[in-house]
């Protein structure tokens, strides 16, 4: 059952006076409508003269486009237009997705609709626009494309072999990016270490499967040259910038609006060719155009992620100290790096994050990111963390086994101590302050570790094989501009919030970071209510509108709470100051004698309420004639915040998984999962806990269920909801979450991010648990997803 959160230990100082909401499990008042069928998702919107677009997408992995015949399609009922890549290119520029700080990275130019060649199954080639989606699909069947099939590069292991054809001959090879990191004396450490363990870890390509598919409505008004895009997206300002530059529009003429978003997880933070094509159609046709990816096209057009093979090894001395890690990571992306955040980031993060929790000094890593004729890949919840954590924690368990040391004790010995901060990790990452030791102690208690081991031993004697697996992890959150801005991408790492007192005394907050279900608007309301001094029901949060909110970065890299939240805090504090100043002017009193409390100005000395916010608003907006001549009323203030102390504010946590493996069938039952997470100040335990749980379940998807299975010709074999397996309720365990709170000093709020840690650690914990269950048989499985087939093979049953 759901246990109350264990927030005992460090009790944090409040951020505001009279803090009522920050830190509490306040329900999301603005989410009730979602339970009543009153949400507004993009597909719910209907506009006059709106057309629907479907895309003819390449049915093969690699083709030369010879001729496109559209006449028959054009004549079908309801068809408004049929547009190909050549026409689209007259208004939409191609792009190349590289970042200058990833030295040597290369990719080829890509168009919104493919011209000359289509390079993956699912790449959009022709757009068919009709009055209804059904009519567009009817016409789509009459589009005839003559093509010549080209050889497809579908194996990452051979992508760089001389015999393998080049996807883009002008690039010289199929290598997008490579990197080597060599710290300390790795070879010497491995040569002298008493214990060396190694393994090759495999990770299956998988994808996000947001329940609401990608969708947008683009509308171009020929009268004023203004583009409006309703987009199910995480970063509206980024899309505004991209639409400007790809279409040659002025920034002030592009308006991007995010309404309710039905799940995103990174899938909806990228700029897709069909995004640009839909906008292009709106411009060409001068009318609203709706694009909703259906589920089949989602599987081949949403970004994929996490296709890696990592060879790793760990060196340990006989006392049990980890001396060194070494990895060689090969990862496969699509034929183009994905725009604008690039497909090299995931591999780059693997290099940065392997070994993260531990205090070793020696580390070497090699990374190769290779092109494939498969769906393009890019950042998806966790971005490299699940890979790095599984490799690290898998090697740690192997070493512990060789040492015959308990795996929890081995970790306790080797994590960076809680008093060692600030410090750097071996890969060069800068760590402000973490709490590995405290988290390990907490999880040991939470899961009754000793009893669990006893239970495991007793059941083993009866032929029941259960396993316990751990995953210590770090997660990067609250990024500075060192992430994208430094590489030339116009992606904001700062964010802004505007706080306004409305005439009746309620508060509106406009924020550059948006809501996709994680509860961002809820925590902003909590912060604003406490910092301005009003009840939370008097706070309205507005997000996701480039014409209304301050310029910001949106949702990615777990920055919403820490960065967006700090901007809200600063703006709300500034608003409270201005309210006090105005109160002073109205009351003709020194502001030092006054205080805000719960929508009232009170006399600090007596505690007496002397002026309600409704009066502040009335006078401030309608009766400035009653104020001193030189007094400036400013009941709407904007503040921006950027995290500038560190490249990232890292968080840490530890997870444990308890599983049972049926050694006759190879089936795995997840009995229980625990997570201790230190994300700094917890703004709302209830929201964070379910974020952690959802993230864990997403990680479980990767380790047990999800894989995009390709055949030898580069065709996706399981691109539908029956054959691509996402986690459903029956197989998921109860997940207990506890927190340690070590605030960051980089902000007043002290909040770090929490959205991705669950996904980072779950695959490692479950993989380690399965291998622990299989310990009596001396077999290990390191290929994810771990299926019954793989377990039966490892056990020699087939």
């Amino acid at each position, binding site marked *: 059952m759901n246990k109350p959160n264990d927030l005992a230990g460090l009790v944090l100082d409040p951020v505001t006076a009279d803090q009522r909401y920050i830190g509490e499990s306040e329900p999301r008042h603005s989410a009730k409508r979602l339970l009543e069928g009153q949400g507004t998702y993009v597909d719910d919107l209907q506009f006059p003269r709106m057309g629907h677009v479907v895309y003819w997408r390449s049915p093969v992995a690699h083709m030369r486009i010879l001729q496109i015949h559209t006449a028959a399609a054009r004549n079908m009922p309801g068809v408004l237009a049929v547009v190909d890549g050549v026409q689209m290119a007259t208004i939409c520029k191609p792009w190349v997705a590289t970042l200058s700080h990833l030295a040597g990275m290369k990719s080829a130019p890509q168009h919104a609709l493919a011209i000359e060649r289509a390079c993956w199954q699912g790449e959009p080639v022709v757009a068919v626009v009709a009055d209804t989606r059904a009519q567009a699909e*009817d016409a789509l069947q009459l589009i005839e494309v003559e093509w010549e099939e080209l050889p497809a590069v579908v194996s990452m292991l051979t992508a760089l072999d001389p015999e393998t054809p080049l996807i883009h001959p002008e690039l010289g090879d199929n290598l997008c990016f490579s990197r080597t990191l060599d710290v300390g004396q790795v070879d010497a450490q491995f040569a002298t270490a008493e214990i060396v363990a190694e393994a090759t870890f495999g990770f299956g390509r998988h994808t996000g499967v947001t329940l609401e598919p990608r969708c947008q409505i683009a509308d171009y008004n020929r009268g004023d040259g203004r583009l409006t895009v309703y987009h199910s997206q995480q970063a509206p300002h980024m899309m505004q910038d991209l639409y400007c530059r790809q279409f040659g529009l002025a920034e002030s003429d592009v308006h991007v609006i995010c309404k309710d978003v039905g799940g995103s997880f990174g899938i909806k933070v990228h700029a897709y060719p069909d995004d640009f094509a839909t906008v292009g159609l709106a411009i060409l046709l001068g009318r609203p155009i709706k694009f909703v990816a259906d589920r089949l096209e989602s599987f081949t057009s949403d970004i994929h992620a996490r296709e890696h093979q990592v060879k790793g090894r760990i060196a340990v001395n006989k006392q049990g100290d980890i001396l060194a890690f070494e990895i060689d990571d090969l990862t496969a992306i699509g034929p183009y790096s994905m725009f604008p955040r690039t497909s090299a980031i995931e591999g780059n993060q693997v290099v940065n994050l392997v070994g993260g929790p531990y205090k070793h000094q020696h580390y070497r890593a090699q990374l190769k990111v290779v092109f494939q004729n498969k769906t393009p890949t890019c950042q998806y919840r966790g971005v490299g963390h699940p890979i790095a954590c599984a490799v690290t924690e898998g090697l740690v368990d192997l070493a512990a086994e060789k040492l015959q040391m308990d795996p929890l004790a081995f970790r306790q010995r080797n994590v960076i101590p809680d008093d060692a901060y600030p410090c750097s990790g071996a890969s060069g990452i800068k760590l402000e302050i973490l709490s590995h030791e405290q988290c390990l102690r907490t999880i040991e208690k939470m899961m009754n570790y000793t009893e669990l081991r006893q239970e495991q031993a007793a059941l083993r004697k009866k032929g029941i094989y259960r396993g316990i697996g751990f995953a210590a992890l770090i997660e990067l959150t609250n990024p500075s501009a060192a992430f994208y801005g430094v590489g030339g991408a116009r992606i904001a790492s700062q964010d802004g919030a505007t706080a306004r007192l409305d005439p009746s005394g309620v508060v509106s907050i406009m924020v550059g970071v948006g809501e996709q279900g994680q509860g961002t608007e809820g925590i902003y309301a909590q912060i604003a209510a406490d910092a301005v001094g009003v009840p939370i029901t008097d706070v309205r949060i507005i997000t996701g509108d480039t014409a209304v909110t301050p310029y910001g970065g949106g949702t990615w890299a777990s920055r919403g709470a820490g960065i967006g939240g700090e901007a809200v805090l600063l703006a709300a504090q500034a608003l409270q100051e201005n309210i006090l100043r105005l109160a002073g002017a109205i009351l003709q009193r020194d502001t030092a004698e006054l205080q805000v409390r719960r929508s009232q100005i009170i006399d600090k000395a007596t505690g007496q309420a002397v002026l309600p916010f409704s009066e502040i608003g009335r006078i401030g907006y309608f009766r400035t004639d009653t104020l001193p001549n030189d007094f400036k009323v400013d009941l709407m203030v904007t503040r921006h915040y950027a995290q500038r102390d560190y490249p990232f504010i890292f968080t840490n946590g530890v997870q444990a998984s308890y599983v049972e493996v049926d050694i006759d069938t190879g089936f795995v039952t997840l009995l229980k999962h625990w997570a201790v997470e230190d994300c700094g100040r917890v703004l709302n335990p209830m929201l964070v806990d379910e974020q952690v749980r959802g993230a864990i379940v997403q990680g479980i998807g990767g380790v047990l269920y999800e894989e995009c299975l390709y055949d030898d010709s580069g065709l996706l074999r399981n691109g539908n909801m029956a054959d691509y397996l996402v986690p459903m309720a029956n*197989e998921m365990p109860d997940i207990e979450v506890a927190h340690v709170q070590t605030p960051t000093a980089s902000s007043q709020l002290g909040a770090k991010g929490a959205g991705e840690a669950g996904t980072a650690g779950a695959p490692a914990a479950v993989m380690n648990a399965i291998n622990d269950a299989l310990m009596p048989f001396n077999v290990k499985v390191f290929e994810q997803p771990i299926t019954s087939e793989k377990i039966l093979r490892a056990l020699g049953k*087939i």
Partner: protein
Amino acid sequence: MKAAAFDYIKAQSIPEVLALMREHGDDARLIAGGQTLLATLNMRLSEPQLVIDITELAELKGIELSGEYLWVGALVTHTEIENAPLIKKYAPILQAAAPHIAHRAIRNLGTWGGSLVYGDPAAEWPACSIAVNATMVVRGLQGERRIPACNFFVDLYTTALAPDEILMGTEIPLANAKDVFSFQELARRHGDYAVAGLAAVAKKTGQALSDCNFVFFSVATTPVAAVQAQNLVNGQAVNAELITAAVAAARAEIETMEDITNSAAAKSHLVGVLLERALKKMLAD
């Protein structure tokens, strides 16, 4: 994914359905629960010109005791089977199997007959119908005929139903006090098509089983009975040796077929595991 256009007619009688089927042949599809058909249509994997709705036909409905048999009409839904006291009493393996079929919302519409005539080797009802020795009652323009379930499933998605015939329902011999059964389905997620499944029914006298039906699903192109294993077990006291022999026989006789994530070898292995577990369970009941 919007279906291609089609005409729709709600049939009022069996002769009307048969006449329409004769007239339109392959251009028409029958819709009962529609849980398989409509997914196919939405994905444009099939584009019939006419959809004939048969859900009004009273003769295809109902679960009734009829002399020596339990009649289960083709239009009986999975949920109705899941809940019916007559099923619990006279064909209990069906009630054990029903919760494994997809999910509740699908079971509320999907039908016994629809599953049987679709002939998906991964489905539960085809294997269960063989396990309970059901007889399919089919009607065409030539009249009515009866086909034993063990002869009904001919090939992948292919039954013995002629193109102009409709399944009326099934006659199922009544289970009695001697009947024991075991229904197992190994699926990666509840409600998915099985990796491997076994519908096992037998009569038990003391420690011996007879009239054994061990019908595997999701391992081959049709549901498949492990006939050699059945013959080995029939009339014998079930002990460890018999189980080992039966398992070996079943693995040897069934030619398994791989699916997207499970090899034929894995399926063969699972055949044996399921049979052993079924025998132990039926022995213990």
